[in-house]
């Protein structure tokens, strides 16, 4: 089981890339009422996608947190649905690019 993450809000510049990349929407910003990005650890599946997109390297693993297995499974289901939607968008875009290529070469 991968450890969940937490955000060090000191160096965070609120660019929101982590929030927008998170497949389980575990990172809250607008609903916090303050300009701080906060991880809802119950929704985090430890996929590390947010760590990779963070330009400030301010997201770290929380080795102490022990996830609830039921909530973790439910978050994984959400992540799979997100990944499927994203794949759909990417495939549609690739197909459109391919059609453009074929059209200009025709």
């Amino acid at each position, binding site marked *: 089981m991968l450890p969940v993450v937490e955000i060090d809000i000191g160096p965070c510049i609120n660019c929101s890339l982590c929030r927008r990349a998170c497949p389980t929407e575990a990172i809250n910003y607008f609903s916090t009422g303050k300009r701080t990005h906060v991880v809802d650890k119950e929704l985090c599946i430890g996929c590390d996608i947010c760590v990779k997109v963070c330009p*400030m390297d301010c997201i770290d693993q929380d080795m102490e947190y022990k996830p609830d297995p039921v909530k973790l499974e439910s978050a994984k289901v959400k992540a799979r649905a997100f990944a499927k939607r994203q794949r759909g968008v990417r495939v549609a875009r690739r197909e459109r690019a391919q059609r453009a290529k074929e059209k200009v070469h025709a």
Partner: protein
Amino acid sequence: MSSKLSEHIRQMPSRRDPPYRPAMTIDKEEAAELDKKLGDAANYDIGLLREMVNADPDNIEFRKALVSGIASAEYAGIDAFSRKVCEWQDWEVPNSLIMAMARQTWDEVRHARLATGVLESYGGKIGEYPDTLAGGAAGAAPSSTQGGGHAHGNGQQANGGATPQAAMQEPISMLSAVNVSLEGGALLLFKGTSELGAKIGDPLMERCFDYNWADEVTHTAIGDYFVKLLAEDDPEAEKRALRIHAMSEYGRTRLDEQQTEELKEFFADEMERATAALAGGGYAGQGAQDTSDDAASGG
């Protein structure tokens, strides 16, 4: 009272040589030309063009269109941020913010020069493709829509925010919408374009947009720093910054086709009102609901 400098700047239209030519205003002849070059005029879209360059790396026209679209935004950035250097002298903001806007203006100048150089390496030139963004038109609003009077503190200006257009000129809102939200979002664009350059063996594209990416991180940090500073001990200002960030993202997430439940929740009231307005306009029934849902979910 507004300073002579800011008044003078507001009267000046956004100009460039060659002149701005917004993509939304091109004629049928030019649309047909884009159809021929890009397969469809609607393919003149930065996100899609990256995919097109990836699909057909030898097609130099696709690369020219992609870099033209990005360069256009850089020229608009020069215009917009340089206006802030002048206009924000009317507000009670630290001089370091004015200097940060000046620095950002020069960063945009470098980005525009770099992107223009990459474009020229493909045999292209600025103005060959229409502009995705054209000048700092928002900053050039007529003075009648601007707040006048003396500064009040915390980035406030007397009568400022009387209209939505004037509200966007206010430093906290503008920094939150443009520096933090828009430039923060642009980090993905620059990273992705730099990676695309590396993938297709185009070192100029790779390095130009890696350089821009690094500056965008700084611009986002500048915006975040000054929003925090100006909204310190002012929860209302902080909420305003959050709201304007959400609005800025809301417009773009629809384009990016991304799902954001938190954003959807944040705008639940607005969506309810939009649904009611659609129903009032004769668009009653499930269709109206679908329209507002689609807008929130990026559909």
